[in-house]
């Protein structure tokens, strides 16, 4: 990477009294990237973000912005800005004063402030709202004002702390696209934290999946989805059917496994290094499973089973079937094909289903706590 990274963390750690929130996290974010940190609540992502903003001091490690360590720089001097979870717009000021706050602190000339505030409001698509009060704005408009308030300072890095969490579903979907557009418009590095995988998947150039204070995997949305490197990522990003199984035979990456109930599976050693006799976790995406009324259609697949439909979760294009596997009684989740063929399936029908060994990703069970 020849270009200087906007943000770089080197073995960053943060410990509280009896608890290590962030453990040796290292990553770098190139200029102009939309970088998301995805993880369940309590994984340490908020602590990490607050360390970048400067509200918390790392226990060890280094933090660089444009290749310069900012550990000794207080938050009000760091070239990063933050959009807070509940936006933290100042209710005692009108919109123009809110957006101009940072410039006033820098001692910028009054007329210059006016000009720059109006420009940035235009860029976020809210021209001429400067004199209004915060309460007169809709949720989405408030988001944009919060971003404008940060962007007017032209920060090197913009931090966003789950800013879409408080919005209703429709608006959230809309704002995902909006945020991505704004990021492209300003061409500023965004570091976005969220526990919502769809937010991360839709908007990000790069996603880091975080769990128990460490980064499990950094990659593009595609990489995370199709080539998860750990069992946690496989389970957390997207949906998957999960089995616990033991490796009975190994041939290169191809594995033969048997579950606790004695069902045999063919699988793929996802990260390598599995040996005969290892206990594994096996993930199969619901959309990778093919169903049919006739056994013959499934026969040729690496894994083939039959089961009884327990329920149909109808959700338009995202409809799913819940099946009870006849061989071992395990529940399995299958995406309903959108071909009309299965429209008349009902509860209690018996169907055949199967998937390829390539779609059966296996990870060493010990990796998961």
């Amino acid at each position, binding site marked *: 990477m020849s270009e200087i990274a906007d943000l770089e963390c080197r073995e960053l750690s943060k410990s509280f009294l009896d608890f290590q929130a962030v453990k040796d996290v290292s990553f770098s974010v190139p200029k102009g990237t939309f970088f998301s940190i995805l993880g369940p609540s309590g994984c340490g992502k908020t602590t990490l973000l607050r360390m970048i903003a400067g*509200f918390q001091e790392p226990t060890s490690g280094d933090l660089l912005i444009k290749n310069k360590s900012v550990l000794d720089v207080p*938050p*009000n001097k760091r070239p990063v800005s*933050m959009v*807070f979870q*509940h936006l933290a717009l*100042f209710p*005692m000021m009108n919109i123009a004063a809110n957006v101009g706050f940072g410039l006033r602190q820098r001692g910028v000339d009054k007329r210059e402030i006016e000009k720059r505030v109006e420009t940035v409001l235009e860029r976020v698509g809210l021209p001429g709202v400067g004199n209004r009060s915060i309460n007169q704005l809709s949720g989405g408009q408030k988001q944009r004002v919060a971003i404008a308030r940060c962007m007017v300072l032209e920060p090197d890095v913009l931090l966003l702390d789950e800013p879409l969490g408080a919005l209703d579903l429709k608006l959230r979907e809309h704002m995902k696209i909006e945020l991505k557009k704004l990021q492209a418009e300003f061409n500023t590095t965004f570091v976005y934290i969220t526990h919502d995988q769809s937010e991360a998947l839709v908007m990000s150039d790069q996603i880091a999946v975080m769990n128990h204070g460490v980064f499990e995997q950094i990659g593009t949305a595609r990489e995370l989805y199709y080539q998860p490197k750990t069992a946690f990522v496989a389970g957390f990003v997207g949906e998957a059917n999960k089995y616990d199984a033991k490796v009975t035979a190994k041939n290169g990456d191809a594995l033969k496994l048997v579950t606790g109930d004695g069902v045999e599976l063919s699988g793929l050693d996802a990260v390598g290094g599995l040996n005969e006799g290892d206990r594994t976790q096996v993930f199969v995406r619901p959309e990778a499973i093919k169903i049919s009324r006739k056994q013959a259609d499934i026969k040729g697949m690496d894994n083939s089973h039959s089961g009884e439909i327990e329920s149909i979760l109808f959700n338009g294009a995202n409809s799913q079937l819940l099946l009870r596997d006849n061989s071992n009684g395990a529940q399995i989740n299958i995406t309903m094909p959108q071909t009309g063929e299965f429209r008349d399936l009902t509860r209690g029908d018996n169907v055949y289903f199967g998937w390829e060994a390539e779609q059966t990703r296996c990870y060493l069970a010990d990796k998961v706590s």
Partner: protein
Amino acid sequence: MTSDKSKLGFFLLLSPLLLWLMTLIILPHVGMFFVSISEKVGVRQYETGFGNYAVFFNEPLYWNTFARTAYMSIAATFLTLMIGFPIAYYIAKLTKGRTKTTLFLMCLIPFWVSELVRTFGWMILLRETGVVSNFLQYIGLVDGPIEFLYNDAAIMTGLVYTSMLFMVVPLVTTLDSLDDSLIEASYDLGGNGYTILREIIIPHAMPGIVSGCIVVFMLSLGNYLTPILLGGKDSLWFTGLIYSQFITRFNWELGSAFGFLLLGLSSLIVFVGLKLSRQSLTETMGR
């Protein structure tokens, strides 16, 4: 039918308040007003007129006493705010859970004893043979006993002490409602301690500041014991004048007029204060 019933319920619920207002506030004031506009012209002879009010404006003594009382009360209010704000900020923002409750209760403790006892407590501390004077002599800072009582500073100390709670409570309430992320956000956007205080914290706490100031000002202005006991020979206080008109002079007419003047003038000062701070009474008291 239902609306009639709910109306009846409304009036029934309202009646204790109305009764209280009428019998204990409005009626006595009406009575006082009539007393205040009767001028004494001889033994058991009275005429109606505003002569008693004129006395206040014609006699510089009374006018000056009011001015002094108002000025001292404003100073006490300001001092209470200056001391109370950091305390309230500490309680509201820098402590949590048990510590917060404990600190809050500690502000309340002085109010478990009567005002008289509290004031006597200060007299024990400040008098010439008192704790402070003896301590200073003991550590060798001064040679002889020092009298801290019987001056304006002693009055001020007593007033600030007595009113502290009434400043801290509304301040803690408003500061408590200030979202911490607003402070962090302004810090993140480049603000420093001073600008955050000026642009974020104070504007947010303004209703609390104003309501605290109104209460403390009114309490100080209407205080009787503290100025009399701690102020000694220079303890001229408007309420003391009213008391002596009523009790030692038997001059209820002038006393009542003074009472109304106190009510009117103090309301005027509060009104001016609200205008200057650009707050409205409904906004301040409605929170």
